[in-house]
């Protein structure tokens, strides 16, 4: 790496050194005389200093020195004639920007400031300059100027510590500016432009923008002062390695043409940073149609030496880096990022430590593949295995700010869940009746709660960032806070006891009647989500657990407020002579827990193409349940007559089906009990499996989704 930094050191020197026409002299040496680190030639010294701190300062220096002398020698080999590469350059705008860098960017002066030594200990980050970089981060409608989470977000995404200072919001609060102390940090942040933060894209700019972004990728490529013969050799080499759009740059170190010209290819010891750029540039000029490049077996530790591949082959489709020494994600960053290799379809990183280590560490290649595909979003094939976007998920941190506004956990979301059609019918009827009365006549619900039922509610006033983003400033909760039984807030036993309502009278009078009036949106099936199933063994009778998520409107007040809610019920069959039964209710509420939230929308339970999920069913009139009737008697059109209401147990009076034995009859009843099938179907099922009871149970469970609705026992209550 420090070899390449040497190159940059050279460019720094060139910029400020007022390089004259004789470029061969100033390349590495002209500006380092004042450096305290003078070992191994100036350039090398600079290289040592700029090493990323992965080694100790001492070894840095030593290595830098050695590198410097090597660099000097080698560059000497490449220069010395009149053919300076800049003069052969094409006139791409980008390229010009790079080439003119020295003249334009006076501020980039990494090695020139007299006082530099005072701040550059061995651990100082590379190429630090006393010029701070000013970064501008803008987005729309996000009040980013005063967003305190931005720093940590950027730090995490940039992957290195950011020394953010002088942070200032713009007048409209849509832009924030801050200083970063060095080009490395500036680049890391600048590269993040386009990333989503709180649902909106960030536009990130920086002072010295072009330099920041191009410094790493094009380290002065065409500044290589090479001899005509060297360039010719490279041309010959490229021609010999090209065929039909495929540029084969495998194992360049062994290439006789390059060896003869003393060109040390990228990845080789003491290779110049410029060689890679020259190779790419020459190749792109000779064969603009190249779409596939192999750089296999070049001992590359980083993409930096060939980072210009992204510049010269922006439309590259396939790239092999097989059998190199790439170890860290960082080392690939030189060819990834916005506007780099955006068409890259296939990448091979087999036989690189970056892959092998990740697999060894994680026991699978999942996170490795996630990381790589995140870096190169256009990839379709990685390591000769297709990238299936649905399988490769990004790290969860990214998911949360991924494209979907409401990024999901990578688990399938299923819609309503009912364990059987019987439950579904029962629950839909219950909810429809319940909420109908809850909205219109809560007093009537007194009969619906058991005499020992419990009710409590919690106002969850948390506002998510997305909600805030969408303009939510927080509803008024004054009608809720007094009774909200959030145990983390309500610590006193008295209050806790007061806020749980026990028994139907207390629940209605002190509980639900004191809550604001509501209008539940149950007609739109997409806005309601229900999980419900029957369970035995809780109370003497079976129960149904219900968890319903939805929304309601508070019609009171100057303007209606929509709130989201979660409500879990436990309901049980209404005892024969209970108030509920007398009112015609088939079930009675044992427990009712209510959560009220800021409006959340229904997206959370949109089924993700899950064919097994029950279809959402509206609970209002569309479900065929009378809605207008506020009287309990209206809730059960077509329900089984009261005399038929029975528990979960199969009817002991069931007449054995003709032609089966008493034992088979008992078996069918047991199957009924265990599966919920009705008697005729239980018999049919057992007959189909030759009266093997276990097989019968298995069959029902396996085919549950396909069993027709009329095969199930009638609703149980």
């Amino acid at each position: 790496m420090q070899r390449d930094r040497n190159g940059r050191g050279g460019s720094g020197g060139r910029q400020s050194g007022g390089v004259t026409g004789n470029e061969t002299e100033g390349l590495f040496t002209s500006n380092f005389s004042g450096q305290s680190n003078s070992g191994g030639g100036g350039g090398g010294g600079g290289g040592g200093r700029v090493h990323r701190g992965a080694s100790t300062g001492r070894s840095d220096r030593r290595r830098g020195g050695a590198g410097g002398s090597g660099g000097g020698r080698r560059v000497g080999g490449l220069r010395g004639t009149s053919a300076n590469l800049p003069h052969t350059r094409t006139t791409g705008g980008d390229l010009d920007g790079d080439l003119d860098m020295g003249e334009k960017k006076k501020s980039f002066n990494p090695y020139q400031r007299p006082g530099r030594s005072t701040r550059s200990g061995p651990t100082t980050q590379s190429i630090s300059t006393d010029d701070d970089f000013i970064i501008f981060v803008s987005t729309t409608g996000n009040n980013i100027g005063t967003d305190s989470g931005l720093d940590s977000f950027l730090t995490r995404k940039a992957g290195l510590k950011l020394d953010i200072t002088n942070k200032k919001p713009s007048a409209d609060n849509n832009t924030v500016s801050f200083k970063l102390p060095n080009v490395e940090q500036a680049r890391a942040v600048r590269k993040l432009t386009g990333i989503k933060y709180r649902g909106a894209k960030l536009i990130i700019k920086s002072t010295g923008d072009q330099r920041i972004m191009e410094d790493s990728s094009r380290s002065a490529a065409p500044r290589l002062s090479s001899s005509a013969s060297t360039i010719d050799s490279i041309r010959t080499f490229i021609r010999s390695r090209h065929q039909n759009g495929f540029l084969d740059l495998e194992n360049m170190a062994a290439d006789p043409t390059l060896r003869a010209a003393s060109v040390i290819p990228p990845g080789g010891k003491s290779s110049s940073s410029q060689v890679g750029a020259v190779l790419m540039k020459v190749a792109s000029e000779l064969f603009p149609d190249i779409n596939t490049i192999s750089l296999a077996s070049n001992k590359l530790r980083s993409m930096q030496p060939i980072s210009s591949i992204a510049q010269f082959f922006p439309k590259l489709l396939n790239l092999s880096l097989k059998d190199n020494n790439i170890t860290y994600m960082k080392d690939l960053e030189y060819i990834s990022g916005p506007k780099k290799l955006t068409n890259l379809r296939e990448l091979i990183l087999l036989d690189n430590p970056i892959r092998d280590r990740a697999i060894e560490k994680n026991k699978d290649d999942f996170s490795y593949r996630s990381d790589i595909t995140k870096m190169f979003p256009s990839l379709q094939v990685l390591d000769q295995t297709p990238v299936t976007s649905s399988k490769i998920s990004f790290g969860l941190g990214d998911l949360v700010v991924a494209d979907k506004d409401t990024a999901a956990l990578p688990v399938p979301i299923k819609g309503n869940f009912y364990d059987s059609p019987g439950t579904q019918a029962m629950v839909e009827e219950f909810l429809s009746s319940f909420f109908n009365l809850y909205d219109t006549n809560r007093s009537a619900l007194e009969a619906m709660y058991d005499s020992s039922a419990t009710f409590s509610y919690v106002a969850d006033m948390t506002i998510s960032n997305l909600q805030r983003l969408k303009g939510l400033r927080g509803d008024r909760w004054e009608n809720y806070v007094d009774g909200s039984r959030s145990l983390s807030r309500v610590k006193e036993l008295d209050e806790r006891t007061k806020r749980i309502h026990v028994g139907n009278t207390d629940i209605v009078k002190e509980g639900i009647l004191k809550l604001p009036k509501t209008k539940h949106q149950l007609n739109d099936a997409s806005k309601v989500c229900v999980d419900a199933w029957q369970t035995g063994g809780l109370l003497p009778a079976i129960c149904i657990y219900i968890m319903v998520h939805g929304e309601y409107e508070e019609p009171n007040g100057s303007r209606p407020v929509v709130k989201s809610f979660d409500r879990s019920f436990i309901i049980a069959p209404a005892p024969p002579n209970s108030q509920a039964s007398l009112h015609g209710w088939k079930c009675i509420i044992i427990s009712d827990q209510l959560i009220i939230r800021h409006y959340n929308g229904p997206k959370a339970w949109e089924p993700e193409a899950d064919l097994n999920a029950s279809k959402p069913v509206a609970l209002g009139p569309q479900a065929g349940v009378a809605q207008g009737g506020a009287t309990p008697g209206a809730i059960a059109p077509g329900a089984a007559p009261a005399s038929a209401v029975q528990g979960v147990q199969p009817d002991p009076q069931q007449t054995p089906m003709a032609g089966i034995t008493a034992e088979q009859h008992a078996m069918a009843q047991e199957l009924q009990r265990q599966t919920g099938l009705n008697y005729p179907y239980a018999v049919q099922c057992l007959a189909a499996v030759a009266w093997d009871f276990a097989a019968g149970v298995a069959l029902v469970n396996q085919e549950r989704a396909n069993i027709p609705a009329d095969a199930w026992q009638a609703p149980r209550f």
Partner: protein
Amino acid sequence: MADINTIGAQFTEFYYKTFDAGRNQLGALYRPTSMLSFEGAQTLGDAAIVEKLTGLPLDGLVHKISTQDVQPLDGGLLITVTGQLLAGGETNAQFFTQTFHLKPDGGSYYVQNDIFRLVYGL
């Protein structure tokens, strides 16, 4: 009997701490009759539930509890928790609601039912 609110709070704290630290340790809380409904997908039995929970791609996530409420139910407890799922350092959390039905078993409790839904934050 100890105050159910205390038991509920202890349970909640233990559950989420264990969940975030190592979900495979949660098996002790369930029984063969326990049921989990996670985002509408149902799982029966402690072994299957642990398998389901450990298979969820939730590594590195942390539960942050916003509210909890406890009701007595048939000698046991009914706990409803709301909170946020946070990725490390992330600020855009996802809201969730989770209800537990705890049943007494000897001197301790186990989870008879566990119902989880994400409700997002819009």
